[in-house]
């Protein structure tokens, strides 16, 4: 187990380091093979670890931080939660790496790209496997850094670099809370080991635990893009599409869910659970409404990610770690699928991302269409797909809690499920439906209102402003499309991982053994699932009624003059503008005050005055040196006289 764990972590680190140091000297194929090979090697090690797994195991490799009582060794912890995550991460990341080979084929900076990609995976695996909080924090920050570097990968364009900075800064707000929690935990318990901490919760009063839980929640909000720190994720679309898939599906945004799931035994007081659940439900609803009006394909998917992560957080808040993990896994598959499929579409359309300018791709891109349809079915939660079971598992546990509060959250979740279905099929109808000929909207709108970084524009492959015509399709590399099939299969069959109890019970649930059997009877469970299925089908029906067939044209025609509500949703509830008003403006004012008044007005002006004073006095004093000998002699004599007078005075005294 020691060897497997070491391999899982060290292989991506090795690949990333080699590529960083000597990648430029290596042939392109070697760099790509190395980057992909280490991830698949890591996956193989994960599989062997799964085969060898008997019970949760803790392995200590070396001492890292050690001072007085403080111990933070490099020790890893493998339990069902982390094992299922590393399997998913290495597998999905392996596919994304392969996809990147084709996607970045024309990119000059491929060495930096692949090195960062490997480091990203390494940081995420460290985060998942870490046994103590400082090591987890190392991975946490590593993920943050790599995401910053990859979102701003095409940094020559200001908006891409801005998007990277925004992601970094916004997540940093959450990280600060998390950092405070880590330090505080050591002060309270004198240990940083997650396993030990989880068993020591009873030592502290509930108030302290609640405060700790809130700090962890804020940390998770930043990383997992939950309300109110969700603004960075839609802008994070500025990076290359595989990076979006990586951030959204396998790494980064799931870190917050993982952290909460990991620390739940410690922080799981009722207040914290309620706060977590409310955050998740609100985020899910908020993002789903925003996704309804988006025009940028990747931005739409980004909002859907925020919404789905909201479901996971809701699941954690309901105390159902296995349900949340289940949704995390299926989401990883279908979201990676959706993003990679979107990458194919965008490549085929010469980096066109406005879904209102697409259409008819059903016929011209069949190998992209079918897997993407599978992903959409999962995302919408159409019955019997993976997404249906996992989303229902989350909603089911929320329902089990009972009470007005959780009942309300359940209703919100159900509404969100409906919205999810609507926006998913709206996207499908707009992108793939209709005829292949082009229907430009009468008044081309800016894709987003925020003006912040969105979309992607390859630095080395500038998108030609071609009209998206039937004949203007660019061939999508076969490799990119083949990657979609295993993901589609996994997404569709992901439900088998954790079937509801009336269908034989859940594999994952038994594997996790973190949750007691369903308290509700089978009938209630079936009823809930039937309800969820009906809701998602209703969403599909609404989408069909709005966008199906001929009505698609009408919607396209309307797009030129969006209603107030559409604008509101398109701009993400104007949250960006609100934050600009609430935080950025005052900060700029304050910075302006310190710059203009304090720095320029007081410090600089003070120094200038002092310098002027010294210069003036120097001039005055300098005028004493007339250069005339007689003056010197006279002053010499005067000085002498003074000395004499003084001496006489001394003698007389």
């Amino acid at each position, binding site marked *: 187990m020691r060897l497997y764990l070491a391999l899982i972590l060290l292989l991506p680190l090795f690949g990333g380091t080699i590529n960083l140091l000597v990648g430029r000297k290596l042939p392109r194929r070697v760099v790509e093979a190395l980057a992909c090979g280490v991830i698949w090697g890591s996956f193989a090690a994960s599989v062997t670890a799964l085969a060898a797994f008997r019970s949760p195991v803790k392995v200590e490799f070396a001492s890292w931080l050690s001072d007085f009582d403080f111990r933070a060794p490099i020790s890893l912890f493998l339990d069902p939660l982390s094992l299922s995550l590393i399997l998913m991460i290495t597998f999905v990341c392996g596919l994304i790496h392969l996809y990147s080979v084709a996607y970045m084929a024309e990119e000059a900076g491929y060495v930096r790209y692949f090195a960062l990609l490997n480091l990203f995976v390494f940081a995420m695996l460290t985060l998942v496997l870490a046994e103590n909080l400082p090591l987890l924090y190392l991975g946490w920050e590593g993920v943050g850094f790599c995401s910053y570097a990859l979102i701003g990968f095409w940094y020559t364009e200001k908006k891409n670099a801005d998007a990277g900075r925004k992601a970094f800064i916004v997540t940093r707000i959450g990280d600060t809370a998390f950092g405070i929690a880590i330090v505080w935990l050591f002060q309270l318990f004198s240990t940083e080991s997650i396993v030990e901490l989880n068993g020591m919760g009873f030592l502290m009063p509930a108030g302290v635990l609640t405060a700790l839980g809130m700090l962890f929640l804020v940390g998770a909000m930043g990383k997992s893009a939950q309300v109110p720190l969700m603004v960075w994720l839609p802008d994070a679309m500025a990076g290359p599409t595989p990076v979006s898939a990586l951030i959204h599906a396998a790494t980064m945004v799931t870190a917050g869910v993982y952290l909460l799931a990991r620390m739940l035994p410690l922080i799981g007081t009722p207040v914290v659970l309620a706060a977590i659940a409310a955050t998740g439900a609100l985020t899910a609803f908020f993002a789903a409404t925003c996704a309804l009006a988006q025009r940028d394909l990747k931005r739409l998917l980004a909002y859907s990610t925020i919404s789905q992560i909201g479901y996971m957080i809701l699941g954690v808040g309901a105390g159902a770690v296995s349900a949340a993990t289940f949704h995390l896994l299926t989401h990883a598959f279908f979201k990676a699928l959706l993003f990679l499929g979107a990458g194919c579409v965008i490549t085929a359309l010469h980096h066109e991302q406005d879904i209102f300018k697409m259409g008819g791709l059903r016929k011209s891109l069949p190998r992209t269409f079918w897997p993407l349809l599978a992903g959409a079915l999962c995302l919408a939660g159409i019955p019997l797909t993976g997404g249906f079971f996992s989303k229902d598992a989350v909603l089911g546990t929320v329902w089990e809690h009972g009470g007005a509060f959780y009942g309300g959250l359940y209703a919100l979740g159900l509404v969100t499920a409906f919205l999810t279905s609507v926006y998913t099929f709206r996207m499908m109808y707009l992108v793939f439906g209709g005829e292949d000929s082009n229907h430009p909207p009468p008044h081309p709108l800016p894709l987003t209102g925020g003006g912040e970084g969105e979309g992607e524009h390859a630095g080395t492959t500038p998108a030609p402003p071609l009209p998206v015509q039937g004949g203007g399709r660019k061939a999508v590399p076969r490799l990119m499309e083949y990657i979609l099939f295993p993901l589609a299969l996994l997404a569709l069959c992901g439900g088998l991982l954790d079937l509801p109890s009336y269908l034989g019970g859940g594999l994952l649930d038994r594997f996790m053994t973190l949750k007691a059997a369903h308290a509700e009877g089978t009938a209630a469970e079936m009823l809930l699932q039937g309800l969820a299925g009906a809701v998602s089908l209703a969403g599909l029906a609404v989408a069909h009624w709005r966008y199906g067939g001929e009505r698609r044209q009408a919607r396209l025609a309307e797009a030129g003059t969006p209603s107030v509500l559409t604008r509101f949703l398109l701009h993400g509830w104007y949250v960006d503008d609100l934050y600009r008003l609430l935080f950025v403006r005052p900060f700029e004012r304050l910075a302006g005050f310190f710059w203009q008044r304090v720095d320029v007005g007081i410090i600089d002006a003070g120094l200038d005055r002092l310098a002027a004073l010294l210069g003036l006095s120097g001039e005055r004093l*300098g005028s*004493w*040196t*007339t*250069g*005339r*000998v*007689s003056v010197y*002699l006279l002053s010499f*004599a005067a000085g002498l006289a003074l000395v004499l007078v003084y001496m006489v005075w001394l003698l007389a005294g």
Partner: protein
Amino acid sequence: MIVPLVHVLVLAVILFVLGLACVLVWRTNVIMMLIGIEIMLNAVMLAFVGGAGVWHEASGQVFALMLMALTSAEVSLALALVVYLHRRKNTVNADEFSEMKG
């Protein structure tokens, strides 16, 4: 010694003040300033010699002799400078040479 030390010192002071006044007042002529310096030096020598007479010490007289040698060297150098200055500006007025002004 017949003459009391006080008389010698008073004479030396008078000589010194005269030399100083000469230097301070006569600045239109560098040569006159040099003469003033010489007078002051003589006053100092007189004080030395007087002291040597009172305390029967040879070193005061030796010092006076040394001062004479020093003075002659100084005067030769100073006069050479005066000649040089006169050549440059065709004047011996000390105030004309104020290039070292700050």
